[in-house]
Structure formats: structure tokens, C-alpha cells
């Protein structure tokens, strides 16, 4: 297997190493795995978003994904959609989110990436959005509705700005296509653990480990698993086969508790929850 997408550090073409590349280089050298919580920006407001990011990183999250609320999120399940709707109903705007990220990113000891629909990027302006992320100190983006065929333009825009464009592979992705995706992805590959939308599952598919192991043998890029991870048992099961795990709905569901439990309590509950996953990860 010819490795056409070597580590950016070792590539003769680029001296740059993004903060995501640095993170995984370090984790790999220590034989450790990443835990990446996902949160919605602006649910219930951007002050809370900032507090949650600080809390998550203080508890040991390796990287955080910030979901940009979108009105028609077909790739997301009911928990994240409800969270997006709450944020949008309060009038959240992209420019305000970017401002919060630019305040937080430089102070956090972990890279940030945004999860954002291409509908928003296109309307905002592809270059303009990439520039704004770069200036904010955000390391990259995940664009769940931009498959590899439609991604060359954005990939180039990201590359020239040293931003990572993290692409997704699903259990239904044929092997040759997975290799093509690995070739154009940067930062890491987001492996969708179940064919379906985001959400917590009670069981993960048994053939998952085998598929992820295969992909990791084909690419120097780290492979992280997301969608449906909610329990310490999931973490224990999957950590050995992946470079990192992404937890979304299970955290976002807890964000809805701000309304009833208050900010401090919710923050602590999210922190405790993530810590329980981190404990499982280190075992």
C-alpha cells in the first residue's frame, strides 16, 4: 500500500504541523488516545459555550468540537437538532460564535474544530469562513454534508491556510472510496460508527473494530470514531482500535439541563461525565 498522504510533519511539501497533528503525534508517542467532546455553540448562550469549553479542557479533553447550529441538520439526531433549534431560536449568529471562539481558542490547551454545514460555509463565503477560523485560532473543520466529490475546493482553501479538513468515512463506504477520502482528509479521519444519524446507542456494531483497524493500516492519519458513543463501556471497547473517540449527543443532552439545574450544576455534571469517559479511556 502506497502511503500518499504522509504525516504533514514528515512531508517535504509542508513544514507546517497543525495543532491537531501535534496532538496526535504526542498521543501516539505516549500510546494514548484522544477524547473529543462535541458541544453546540450558543446553547443556551455563548457564555455557557465558553464555560463548557474551559471545563472540558480542564477535565482533560484532548480536543473539542463545536457544532455550529443549522436549521436543517439532516446528519444529526433529535438531541443535537433540538439543541441547534434552541440556539437558533435565541438568535445565535455565526459572527458571534466566531468571536467567542477567537476569545477561547488561544486560552485553551486543546485544539478546537467546528462542525458546520456546507450551507452555512457557502453562504458566508468559503474563503472568508476559512480566514475567520484561522484568525480565531481554530484548528480545522468537519463539514458533514460535504462528501469527497464536492470537497476539493474547500480542501484547497483549508490547505493553503494550514487548517485541517476532517472528512468522514461510514460503515457503508467501500474500501477504495475510504482510501480516496483518507487522501484528501487532514488532521484525522472521522469514522462514523453506525450507518445513521448521531445519537446514543446501547450497542455498537461488532464489525466496527475490524473496519477501523483496516483503515488505520492504510493511512498515516489518525482515525477517530464518533456517532453513538455514550458509555464508559463503549470507550473501553473502542479505544484500543482507534486514535480517538468523539462524544456528542450524550453531552449535548446534558446541556439542555441548564434550564432546570442551572449553569454551575450542569457544568459540573458535564465535567464529571467526561471525566468518567476519560477514566475508561486510560484503563
Amino acid at each position, binding site marked *: 500500500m502506497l502511503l500518499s498522504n504522509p504525516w504533514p510533519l514528515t512531508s517535504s511539501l509542508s513544514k507546517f504541523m497543525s495543532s491537531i497533528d501535534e496532538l496526535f503525534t504526542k498521543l501516539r508517542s505516549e500510546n494514548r488516545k484522544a477524547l473529543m467532546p462535541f458541544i453546540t455553540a450558543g446553547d443556551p448562550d455563548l457564555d455557557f459555550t465558553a464555560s463548557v469549553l474551559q471545563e472540558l479542557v480542564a477535565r482533560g479533553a484532548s480536543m473539542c468540537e463545536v457544532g455550529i447550529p*443549522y*436549521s*436543517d*441538520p*439532516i*446528519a444529526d*439526531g*433529535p438531541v443535537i*437538532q*433540538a439543541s441547534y*433549534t434552541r440556539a*437558533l431560536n435565541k438568535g445565535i*449568529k*455565526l459572527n458571534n460564535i466566531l468571536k467567542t471562539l477567537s476569545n477561547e481558542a488561544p486560552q485553551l490547551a486543546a485544539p478546537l474544530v467546528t462542525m458546520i*454545514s*456546507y*450551507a*452555512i*460555509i*457557502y*453562504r*458566508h463565503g468559503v474563503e472568508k469562513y476559512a480566514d475567520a477560523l484561522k484568525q480565531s485560532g481554530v484548528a480545522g473543520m468537519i463539514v*458533514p*454534508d*460535504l*462528501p*469527497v*466529490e*464536492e*470537497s*476539493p*475546493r*474547500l480542501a484547497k482553501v483549508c490547505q493553503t491556510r494550514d487548517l485541517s479538513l476532517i*472528512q*468522514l*468515512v*461510514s460503515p*457503508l*463506504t*467501500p474500501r477504495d*472510496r475510504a482510501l480516496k*477520502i483518507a487522501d484528501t482528509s487532514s488532521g484525522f479521519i472521522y469514522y*462514523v460508527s*453506525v*450507518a*445513521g*444519524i448521531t445519537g446514543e446507542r446501547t450497542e455498537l456494531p461488532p464489525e466496527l473494530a475490524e473496519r477501523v483497524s483496516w483503515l488505520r493500516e492504510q493511512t498515516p492519519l489518525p482515525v477517530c470514531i464518533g456517532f453513538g458513543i455514550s458509555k464508559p463501556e463503549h470507550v473501553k471497547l473502542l479505544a484500543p482500535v482507534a486514535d480517538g473517540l468523539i462524544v456528542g449527543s450524550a453531552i449535548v443532552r446534558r446541556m439542555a439541563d441548564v434550564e432546570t439545574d442551572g449553569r454551575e450544576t450542569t457544568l459540573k455534571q458535564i465535567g464529571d461525565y467526561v471525566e468518567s469517559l476519560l477514566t475508561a479511556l486510560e484503563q
Partner: protein
Amino acid sequence: MSTAPTNKKEHKKCSANVPDAAGRYGDFGGRYVPETLVHALDQLEKEYEASRLDAQFQAELDDLLKNYVGRPSPLYFAKRLTEHCGGAEIWLKREDLNHTGAHKINNTLGQALLTMRMGKQRVIAETGAGQHGVATATACAHFGLDCIVYMGEEDIRRQAPNVFSMKLLGAEVRPVSSGSRTLRDAVNEAFRDWMGSVETTNYILGSVVGPHPFPQMVRDFQSIIGSETIEQSRSRFSALPNVVVACVGGGSNAAGMFFPFVELDGVELVGVEAGGRSDKPGDHASPLTYGRPGVLHGSFSYVLQDEDGQTLPVHSMSAGLDYPGVGPEHSYWKSTGRATYTCCTDDVAMQAFDALAKLEGILPALESSHAVAKAMEIASERPRDQRIVVCLSGRGDKDACEIARLKGEAFG
């Protein structure tokens, strides 16, 4: 990756040889979907391409269209409506006379036949006015397929008769309570379902929207409308129509009517969107008239969005037109100047409904009433020797309750 076309009037040559392999109609179309759906779309595209070359598939579809749907649908000269307008002749392509009362059945039979060919047993669909839901439930009953229809709660309220029909036909109607609780949210839910069920389920999409190959496939299944119109025009008045008018929500009846005319340059093609209450954002559903190119539901096309790319609320009294996006081929036809697009308000469409009811004894669907309204306007401005064909996409029985409500009259 394409760039957005500008609103400049630089008309390029319009081709009927679209989409390309990437599902592009000029700059428009494509596939903006989660990776999980790509496999399903690839599979669908492959099966669809194979079915086009399969003589048995085509023969079966032709037989169904003739003996089950009742095609060809008549091309009817609306004499009294023509006299009322006092200008060009108005002819109606009677898709309202199809089985289930609208053009939607042309497409659902094709896609259901494709579902059978793929060996899948479960079908999902979205519906706005309920016509596509009824047509899908009908096709599924015919083939013995399991059918689940996603429908916004607001539309369920507006289209009660169709909801009941779907249930009678054995379909399960799943109410969608997220977002605006209309067609757009039903599309979201159907895609979500499909992402978790692609291996056993086929998604029968009702319009020329969504990711490739849906816009092409739905257009092709609906093109029988335009093809028959060409044939019937030649036999009825030995010429082609001067103008062809159709309403545009997602744009399936218009695409099916317009497509066979694309390379017949002398025929003007006019699409009519829902102008709703006014031209203010939120008051209408006219992306081609007031919107900009952007991404929605897996496709790059004209769309109604705010400056952040969030989909704007839309309004039309007609549930079938109440949609913030439009098929990518319409955007292509607009950008090449091959078709022109305009809109018609709720009030004007209602006047056209009344005119057709009283002058011709035909209750048109509220959707189709928008096209009738524009045709009446054009007819009154054109000489008597010109001919306008309107795609009368559906019948208005389903709208009776809603029309009574809008007119403030008691129903039943």
C-alpha cells in the same frame, strides 16, 4: 466545486444533455449529503441507469401509466376561460385526471418499480400537500411494499383528506413536529430515516430536488407530461404551443412539462412560484424570484436563506408550494434564460381557482391555480392566434377544507 452564478443576464446555451456525471446542471445540483448516504445514492443511480436500458422495466411502467394511471391525460381547450381572458387560447394539460388526482403518480410508480427491481421491501417518502404521499402509498399498495410517509404537522392539519387517504391505502403517516412542521422538515426526517435504513429501504422523493440522482430521475419520470403535450399539440392544433406554464414548488410538474421542450427554442417556458402574502422574507415561497443560490437538502440551487445560511420560513396557502428550495435544473434554466420564473400571490391564485371552477367546471389544486393565474394574465396580453398550455398538475378536492377556511365559509 462550482462558484455561484451571478444574477447578471449572461445567458449560456441551455442543454437537454444534463446532468453530467457529478449530477450537475451547469453550476447547480451535485450532492451535499452525509457520507452515509453516498452509498445509497450511488446504488440508486446505478439501478436507475440500468432500468432505463431495461425494455421489460419500461414496458411494465408504460403499461401501468396507461392502464392504472389512465394516461395519456387529455389536452383540453378551455374555451370559456379563453373568452374570459380575451386573448390567446388557454389549453389545459389535465394531470388532475390521473389516478390519485395529480402528476405525482407518474413518478411514484417509476420509483416503486425501481424499489422492486432493487429488492427492497420498505419505502419512505416525504409529503407536503399530501399528493406525493398519496401517490407513494398508492404505488406501494399496488406493489405490496411497506410505506412510511413523513409529513409536517402543519401540513397534516391543512391536508386532512389526503392524510386519511394515505392511511386507507395502508401507509403509516409519521407527523414531523420539528422546525416549521412543513415539507422541508418532512424532507429532513425522511433523509434521517434513510441514513439508518439504506440497506432495506428506498426513499421515494417526490420532487426534482435533493441530491443526484433524484432531480434527474424525478424529471425523467415526469417528462411524459411534456412529451404527451408535444404530441397532442401537434395532433390538436398542428403546432407547438407558444407558451407553456407550470407552477413551481420543488418543481416536478414544471420539470416534467418543460424538459421535452428545452431544445424547442420557439416555445416560451414560464414557471410560477408561490408569492404568498407579499415579497417580504417569510411571506412567500419563491426562491427563484427572491432567493439566491445556496445549499439545501443535498443540492446547490436557488434557496431562501438568511445571511448565515439558515433556511428562512416560507409561506404559501398551497402546501405543495410551501418549500424554501427548488430543483437545480430550474436554477439552470433560469441562469441560461431558457425558462423564466415569476410568482403569483395567494389572492391572485385564489381568483384563478374561482375562475376555473365557475367557467370550466374544474376545481384545480391550489398549487396549479398559481399556474392558471399566470396563464390567464399572459393570455390577456397575447393575440388570439397564440396558444398557451398550462400544466394543471392536480385537482382541488383535497383543498376544499382549506379553501373554506381561507374564504371564511363553513365546510360540510
